[in-house]
């Protein structure tokens, strides 16, 4: 019979351990980032980054993450005006 209390402690330990690894891989620029679907990690790696794919497979696979390949994240730009003086409005498109 499974001891539920021990099982929950083990699950929390496993999540903590995977968080530490993901933090490290993020700081080392191996992965673009990560998030969570409940207790399942969602890992973002660059499209066709074979090295990142292999590192994730070898180091994170024990918790069966969702791996998403994508390009880099950028703040979106657009058209917006901001000025210190309403008689001298910027003609430049602002990030928006």
């Amino acid at each position, binding site marked *: 019979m499974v001891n539920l209390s021990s099982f929950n402690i083990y699950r929390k330990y496993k999540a903590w351990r995977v968080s530490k690894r993901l933090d490290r891989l993020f700081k080392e620029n191996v992965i*673009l980032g990560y998030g969570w*679907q409940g207790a399942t990690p*969602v890992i973002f790696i660059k499209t066709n980054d074979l090295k990142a794919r292999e590192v994730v497979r070898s180091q994170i696979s024990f918790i069966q993450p969702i791996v998403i390949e994508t390009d880099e994240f950028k703040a979106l730009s657009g058209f917006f005006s*901001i*000025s210190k003086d*309403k008689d001298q409005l910027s003609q430049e498109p602002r990030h928006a």
Partner: protein
Amino acid sequence: MFTDGKQKYLGIASHCVVGDDCRLAGNLLVQPSVADGGGKDDVIGEVHQCTDLTQPELTTDFCLIIPKVDVDPNILGLELKPTGKYADVKPGMQVVMSGRTSGVREGTIMATNVMVKIEYQCGYKVFKNGILATALSLEGDSGAPVIAKDTGDYVGYIVGGSSTMSLIGYGKLLEKEFKVKPVA
């Protein structure tokens, strides 16, 4: 729209009002922009408080604007009425956005408590506690409100994204960092 109980504010993304050094570029907001045909008679508000984007790590990218014109609190193109509540965001949740470029678009929350490296005009930053959704947004949609499709609660605002995903700033963090709530 947002309120701290005394004043009503418009909410936009902070990177809308900063220069290439990520410092505040001015305090008057013009809508539509000069590029969209706006001019000096189209000042709609004044900057009140913004996330400091010169920091290397961010949990918000948001700015409160004191409106100088009458503002309709309803969201353009959406039949859902603002509820005045922040949504509890969960993966799989269906959301809807109304943006300047994309108009109304629907998507699905893919991940919460997200940490990503994101490129700003002044370089890369680490964005923490974000939300990732399927691609909702395009250039020009930053700051656009994202709403829970089933309840109308406020999920957050568009910050950026990749070609396949949209990064959303988590609405609930505004209560802590800006002491505001959405207006019903």
